[in-house]
């Protein structure tokens, strides 16, 4: 390979066979665009969690360019005053609440003030003060731990580091057990305030109702007429008139599929089958039940290699177990794992 724009490299024609050899055998297949985006998302999450939540990132969201002077001098004073007024609160100083890890069907639009409109890509930060509108389903990794899955069409205002307002749409919160947080996540709805107590739950809010479904752990719901603590398998339904009803709801099944479709990737490589089954259990909302000690031991000492990416959780589970000496069945709501093939 010779580079016409470059000065001649010593060696000249004698190097041609060598260069041909190197070009043909050193060329490699790049990562596919999808794989590259997955890697970008995962690396960006870690970067978001480890880097300072400030800085010159301000420039990324800056909305105007001072491109032309001179003829616009008269208008400039007025424009500068206006911009100054709205821009005095720099975006970069706002705390990072989370990072976009996955988007589809158009991504997330951000409205962060009068002049600040922006479409977030994978790896970009959500900050206090932003109001986001998800054009399609999106997965957000929260800086304080856990994830937020947002259905397309939802509108959410980020009022504080641990305070969101669901203005419209559907939201799924996953805060894994044992997460140390300075303060619990609170989500305001039109009717009341939902506070997680270590859990997975879903909130739907529209003009008619606010619905909260608890999948794991507990949530506290406070509204004008009282406070209620709802545990896993409970649905709270509120009307705009302020009435709240409570009823049991399954923690698995079709109703949760939209959230399962936004599940973060589980990095299988080098992890035990037991780790993987625990993760599947949470994702599907089905308790894990080892039929006997042999099944548990088998899962604990089996180490997985490869990837389950781009497969639905249950399909991936079937594939994974088909490569092992274990089998599973869905019994009631549980995943029962057997060692006796």
């Amino acid at each position, binding site marked *: *390979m010779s*580079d016409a*724009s*470059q*000065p001649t*490299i*010593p*060696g000249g024609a004698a190097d041609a066979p*060598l*260069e041909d*050899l*190197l*070009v043909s*055998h*050193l*060329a*490699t*297949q*790049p*990562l596919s665009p999808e*794989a*590259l985006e*997955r*890697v*970008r998302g*995962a*690396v*960006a999450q*870690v*970067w978001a969690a480890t*880097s*300072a939540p*400030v*800085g*010159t*990132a301000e*420039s*990324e969201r800056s909305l105007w360019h001072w491109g032309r002077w001179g003829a616009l001098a008269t208008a400039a004073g007025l424009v500068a005053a206006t911009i100054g007024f709205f821009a005095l609160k720099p975006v*970069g100083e706002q705390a*990072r609440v989370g990072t976009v890890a996955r988007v589809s069907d158009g991504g997330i639009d951000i409205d962060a003030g009068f002049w600040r409109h922006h479409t977030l890509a994978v*790896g*970009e*930060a959500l900050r206090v003060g932003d109001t986001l509108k998800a054009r399609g389903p999106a997965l957000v990794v929260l800086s304080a731990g856990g994830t937020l899955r947002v259905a397309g069409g939802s509108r959410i205002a980020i009022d504080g580091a641990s305070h969101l307002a669901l203005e419209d749409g559907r939201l799924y919160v996953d805060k894994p057990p044992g997460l140390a947080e300075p303060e619990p996540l609170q989500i305001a709805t039109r009717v009341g305030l939902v506070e997680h107590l270590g859990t997975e739950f879903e909130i739907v809010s529209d003009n008619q109702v606010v619905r909260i479904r608890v999948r794991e752990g507990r949530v506290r719901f406070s509204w004008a007429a009282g406070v209620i603590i709802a545990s896993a398998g409970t649905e709270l339904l509120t009307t705009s008139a302020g009435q709240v009803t409570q009823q049991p709801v399954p923690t698995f099944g079709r109703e949760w599929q939209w959230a399962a479709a936004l599940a973060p990737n589980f*990095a*299988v*490589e*080098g992890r035990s*089958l037991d780790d993987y089954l625990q993760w599947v259990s949470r994702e599907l909302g089905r308790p894990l039940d080892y039929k006997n000690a042999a099944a548990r031991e088998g899962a604990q*000492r*089996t*180490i*997985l*290699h*490869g*990837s*389950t990416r781009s497969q639905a959780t249950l399909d991936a589970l079937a*594939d*994974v177990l088909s*490569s*092992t000496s274990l089998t599973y069945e869905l019994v009631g709501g549980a995943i029962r794992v057997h060692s006796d093939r």
Partner: protein
Amino acid sequence: MYEADRKLVARMLAGEKRAFDEFFNTSAQRLTAFATRRSGLDAASLEDVVQNALIKAIRRLASYRGEAALFTWLSEICRHELADVRRKAARQPVHVSLFEPGTTEVAVTQLLAPEHLEPVAELNTEQRRAAVMRVMGSLPEHYAVALEAKYGDGLAVQDIARLLGLTIVATQSLLARAREAFREQWRESAPGAAHGGLAL
């Protein structure tokens, strides 16, 4: 000192998204090429290796002092990651591979291969590729990196110069020496048939 790389890292540590993008866009595919050339891993495993290497690099970002080019530093982390993968593969208690089961089937059902993919041609190509990689592995690291950047990644000399923190003239000189070293190793290591019959 690799001042530009050090500044880029400082901007990343300060949370500047544009710096992260610059880092990722210039590193990810090059690191993939680096890992591909040093392993026989399939695409999914390569993705994991590159991802893990970049994540480890991000976690250790504060320890980067600019004493080597950022990519050299990254490739060292990637090299350890590849070694880990090999070590794990050698001592796993029970191996369960989840890689695409369909790939063998596809190969078997390909009855008519193009001429250049005939078994003998394939074998020659494979032998030659392996020989190239052996010789590359025997070269000093900066020679190998320069040759890979030029002939594998198709970078222009000024880009390689920027990557290695050298002047253009020094980079040209490095490439010339690297090619000469490659040629000598190639001739010495196995003449004729073992290299797929190619003399340089």
